[in-house]
């Protein structure tokens, strides 16, 4: 395991808390901070740390398990598992990601961030998440 496996959520955000937890943990999984074999905190423990309901964390763990990242063992928390290379994404899925990225980049441009800066940020992120 490398780096600090800290997740951060914003309860005032319009994005549901479980979605933020999924996104934050997925980043740690993709960048390798959480390696296969790592144990995640129990649903109860993580819910307590974040001050959210059990079901919120339970839903996030289930989503990650469905994506193939976690093995949920009843009463024993969650363990990161080696995930096989996913099949190539369908064209519709790629189109969905493109739309989301376009919206986000447009929002960044609207905030006054130069295109070169955005491209640099994307390249740096891609290096980390490679």
């Amino acid at each position, binding site marked *: *395991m490398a780096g*600090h*496996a*800290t*997740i*951060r*959520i*914003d*309860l*005032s*955000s319009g994005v549901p808390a479980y979605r933020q937890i999924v996104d934050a*943990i997925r980043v*740690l999984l993709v960048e390798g901070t*959480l390696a296969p074999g*790592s*144990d*995640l*905190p129990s649903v*109860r*423990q*993580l*819910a*307590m*740390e*974040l*001050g*959210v*309901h*059990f079901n919120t964390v339970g839903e996030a763990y289930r989503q990650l398990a469905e994506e193939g990242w976690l093995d949920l063992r009843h009463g024993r928390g969650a363990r990161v598992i080696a995930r096989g290379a996913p099949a190539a994404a369908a064209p519709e899925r790629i189109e969905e990601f493109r739309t989301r990225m376009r919206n986000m980049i447009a929002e960044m441009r609207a905030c006054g961030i130069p295109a070169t800066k955005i491209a640099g940020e994307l390249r740096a992120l891609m290096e980390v998440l490679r």
Partner: protein
Amino acid sequence: MTQALWIATVSIVLEGVVLLLLPNLTPSQMYFGIRTGAAFRGTEFGRRVCRQYRLQVLAWLALSAVLMMADSSGSELTAAIGSMLPFVGAAVAFVRAYRQVRPHAQPLPAIREADLSPRTPDLPRWSWLALPPFAVPLAIMLYVRAHWDEIPARFPSHFNGEGRPDRWVERSERTVFAPFWFTEGMLLLFLLLFVAILLGSRKMTRPTAIPGIIVGAMYMMSVFFSATGLTPLWQPPAGVLIALTVAFVTGAIVWAYRRNSDPRLPAEPTPDDCWTLGSFYVNPNDPALFVQKRVGFGYTINLGNVWAYVFFGGFMLGMFALTFFLKWAMGG
């Protein structure tokens, strides 16, 4: 001055110190049970509220002292009332300060963080330090067993307010060893409390001094009660035991003060509307059993969590059962 009055006087002095320091014995982000931010207490208004609170507490302490000095007989009733008065007065003064500070509450931070790293274990590495106190009563039991023939046929089991024995019991396995089993039971309850606090609270509040103080109290109890259990062979001097208790309480207060006044200690983001008078926390949506106190130091239970009731009820039941056992064993 009777022993009861001495004990009452010492306890009032300790009470006074704690009550006067109460505004400081909180995380620096909190002030009179309200999340105000660390800078608020240094403002002119913040200092004025604190000054008024302390003046009222001092007035109640003075009233308590006058009451106790006026009773030349030094009755236990006067001592009890004298001990309670500063608490009542401080509660009234606190509610007033709480209402003054409440309009200055800061909004609850919406950002929450959690460390998923397994490097932060559920129990800290030093938790094993909670186990050695269990050996003290066992060791003294072995000592008493080895000196069984030196125990008189009847020995004192209770002492009055002046330190003189006023009840005796016959020597038997039950009467001699009951205080040691009582001690082991109390230590077990405190061990459960220690573990429950660490497992049932957020890791961000771990730097509070309370888990360490609980372990310290276990050492204190093991020595104090085991020494009391030595009564059939040797009567420990009450003054030494009282001095030991005062030294422990003073040390705990100083340590807790130093830990809690550290501005790096974060304030737990518990919603303001789940607190009553900054003292009672009721949040059914919070899985935590114990949350950081807003008044004083340490933890309070989440009254909205049914498991907190189960634990607290079990703890109190254990205390009553142990007290009942001791009274029964000593023929009380």
